């Protein structure tokens, strides 16, 4: 359901205030502690952020893609780690269920995911299966009415505090690629599930990532997502389509934040007896950043609108992610440059964003994988 413009504006105004008043003052503390303060997580739950994209029938807000992108852009105005806290419930951790779950599975999990009582994580990547996600080696072998899952999932966002894993595992060993993969809903407390030590990362401190290990994990057949075998990879790709637009929108938001910070700094900072904003070489950096951010914003809005209208946007979403995440990388690099020495010093927070945004070009499909998606689509259309 699309919101009327007044209601959407109120929602965005409220979140903008929350970002400015609550989250921005906690950016450096969250990075230093590598942890979002628990009371902030509770406030996010109370605000309803964990249920942004879960349908209203299951207790969420049921935002469409344009609305979700507008919210993601607001959360780009602060450290991306904050968004990550509810990001999996909004995106990859819940959408498999929303898109392809059975009615019973939705009833069972989604209302609790909408309130944040259950945190969901998405277990696709493995030590040997990254970009080549269809090659997952984790197995789910039928044993009576159950499945036995074995394997290791790598770099799983929010796994250290997740309650529910959507696990992609091979149910048909005779098929090497995508067609032998199924998705399962696995509770963290199931015997045989264990977690690796959280990784130390380049950026986004406060957004925890670890491995999830499955050793003879027995799950009943009703935990097979959608009740259908060997279609899990199709589900994963549908989920990632949406996730790519979400990440593109955050990239636009972070770029806006950095452009604002850099412009204000350039106006204040004087060298050679004038504000550095007066130097055309500095102006070029600002103008390029602004132009590229605006281009990405338009791409995201247009693609989100087309997705909401029911179009297949697979290649367009890949274009958005490719351009928006590379764009924010360039914008962050220029922001460091405009801040000069201060850009390299921790206290100013600019170098932190520079590290934070690096991830956007890697997860949910690297830039190269987006390029291959786009090119394959082109070749298909013109041959």
């Amino acid at each position, binding site marked *: 359901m699309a*919101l*009327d413009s*007044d*209601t959407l504006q*109120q*929602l965005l105004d*409220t*979140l903008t*205030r*929350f970002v400015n008043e609550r989250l921005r003052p906690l950016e450096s503390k969250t990075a230093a502690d590598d942890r979002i303060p628990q009371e902030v997580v509770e*406030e996010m739950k*109370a*605000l*309803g*952020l964990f*249920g*942004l994209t879960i349908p209203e029938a299951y207790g969420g*807000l049921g935002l469409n893609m344009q609305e979700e992108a507008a919210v993601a852009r607001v959360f780009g105005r602060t450290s991306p780690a904050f968004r990550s806290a509810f990001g999996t419930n909004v995106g990859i951790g819940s959408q498999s269920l929303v898109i392809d779950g059975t009615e019973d599975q939705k009833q069972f999990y989604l209302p609790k995911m909408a309130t944040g009582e259950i945190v969901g994580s998405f277990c696709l990547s493995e030590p040997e299966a990254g970009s080549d996600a269809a090659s997952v080696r984790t197995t789910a072998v039928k044993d009576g009415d159950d499945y036995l899952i074995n394997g290791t999932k790598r770099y799983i966002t929010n796994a250290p505090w997740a309650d529910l894993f959507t696990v992609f595992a091979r149910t048909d060993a005779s098929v090497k690629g995508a067609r032998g993969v199924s998705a399962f809903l696995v509770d963290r407390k199931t015997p045989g599930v264990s977690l690796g030590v959280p990784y130390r990362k380049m950026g986004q401190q406060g957004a925890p990532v670890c491995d999830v290990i499955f050793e003879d994990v027995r799950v009943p057949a009703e935990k097979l997502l959608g009740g259908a075998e060997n279609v899990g990879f199709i589900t994963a790709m549908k989920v990632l389509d949406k996730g790519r637009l979400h990440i593109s929108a955050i990239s636009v938001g972070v770029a806006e934040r950095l452009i604002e910070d850099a412009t204000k700094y350039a106006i204040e900072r004087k060298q050679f007896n004038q504000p550095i904003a007066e130097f055309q070489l500095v102006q070029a950096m600002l103008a390029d950043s602004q132009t590229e951010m605006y281009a990405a914003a338009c791409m995201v809005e247009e693609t989100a609108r087309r997705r909401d209208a029911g179009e297949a946007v697979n290649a367009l979403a890949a274009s958005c992610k490719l351009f928006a995440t590379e764009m924010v990388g360039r914008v962050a690099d220029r922001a460091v440059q405009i801040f000069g020495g201060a850009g390299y010093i921790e206290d100013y927070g600019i170098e932190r964003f520079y590290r934070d945004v690096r991830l956007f070009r890697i997860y949910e499909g690297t830039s190269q994988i987006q390029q291959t998606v786009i090119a394959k689509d082109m070749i298909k259309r013109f041959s």
Partner: protein
Amino acid sequence: MKILVTAKRVVDYNVNIRVLADQSGVDLNNVKMSVNPFDEIAIEEAVRLKEAGKAEEVIVVSVGVSQCQEQLRTALALGADRGILVETDEALQPLGIAKALKAVIDKEAPGLIITGKQAIDGDNSQTGQMLAALAGLAQATFASEIDLGEDSATVTREIDGGLETITVKLPAIVTTDLRLNEPRYASLPNIMKAKKKPIDIFTPADLGVDVSPRVKTLKVEPPAERAAGIKVESVEVLVDKLRNEAKVIS
């Protein structure tokens, strides 16, 4: 008990106010408008009283242009039950607003009325007091604590140099100070539900009141810009300048 609260539409506190070139007022064109922050505190207090079981209904009133419905929706999202707009394009002054509010009190008979101690546009700090006089009700201004009883309320007031605690008979008018509470963020589901809560719209004529301005604004000017400071060579020069240029000593 019903609690009546106010939600004035004012320029958002983050906006840099600009005076119109013709000095007739401040520029409201394309400017972000919000609920007066002191009214937000009033709304929060009323909602907390309702959550504590001390009130059954929270009614929020705004006086002003049609777009004040946005501010009423914000109040409804924060937990008020229904809204009333007294719609007028008149330039609003405390007396006009107080008259409109008095008419709403006559209609609704609330047990408690909470308003902001002032609005951040005119900073008049008069509406609550005028309303108390017009309605013949007790008033407790600048509240930092409200303890609501059956027929009376005990209110701690922030006064010069300390705190004063008074008891007022209900119904009473209370105006909020900054430290009364910290307003919550409206939850997103409540923002969506607010759309379905009712807002009644009246004109001042419907209520039989005349809200036309009694005070004429001659000119609006921005505060004088602070000139850059200077360094002086010696105490003698400083004293000379204070005496002969600034004329602050003799």
